[in-house]
């Protein structure tokens, strides 16, 4: 019973990632594509937690933490690029 539910939700995550991937391909602007990449990252984290429940292992938890950190940093980098035009500045304007 639980396995069936987990497999169904994994399938739905796959469908969601596929739908988001069309946004990466079609996306009118640059921001649409970056936001879609971020959504795929969040979906991957959730799907990976379901996989670790299915396989009854703790090995994927580190991968989830690292993916979450990288998604966080990429979100910050992109929002800073939108606001200032430069990601890493030599001397910030106060």
């Amino acid at each position, binding site marked *: 019973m639980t396995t069936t539910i987990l497999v169904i939700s994994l399938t739905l995550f796959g469908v969601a990632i596929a739908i988001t991937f069309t946004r990466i391909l079609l996306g009118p602007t640059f921001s649409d594509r970056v936001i879609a990449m971020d959504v795929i990252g969040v979906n991957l984290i959730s799907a990976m937690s379901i996989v670790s429940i299915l396989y009854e292992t703790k090995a994927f938890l580190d991968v989830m933490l690292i993916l979450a950190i990288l998604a966080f940093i990429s979100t*910050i980098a992109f929002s800073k690029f939108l606001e200032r035009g430069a*990601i*890493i500045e030599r001397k*910030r304007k106060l």
Partner: protein
Amino acid sequence: MRINDVILQSVTKVVVFIIFTLAIYLFVSGHNNPGGGFVSGLILASAFCLLFLAYDTETIRKGIPIDFKVIAASGAFIVVACGLGSVLFGEAFLYQTFTTYTLPLFGETEFATVTIFETGVALAVVGVVVTIILSISEDV
């Protein structure tokens, strides 16, 4: 318009230490679990990248006066020296060994020479990645 990123800088001051802790955990959990020197070096480099994002390169270089090229070179030296060290004991190049001691607080603990090798790998990775990021960003 004055740019105000107090929230980003305050969050960064806390989150960087969490990321450093995760990197050290991944480094120590090395050879029996997922983790090890390479991943730990990449996470350390991402923490430095977050610092450079939230502040600017001059502030961070004043705060952390480390030349990352030296870090990368010393990491490569540690890797080669760990490999050559086993030759001195009459074993093959890069031969590794381990032993167990009983520590007062941790109980039976395993010590391996792979840890020295992993230290070199982590230092090399963090040095190279931060040097690449800094030289790309200073080019603009």
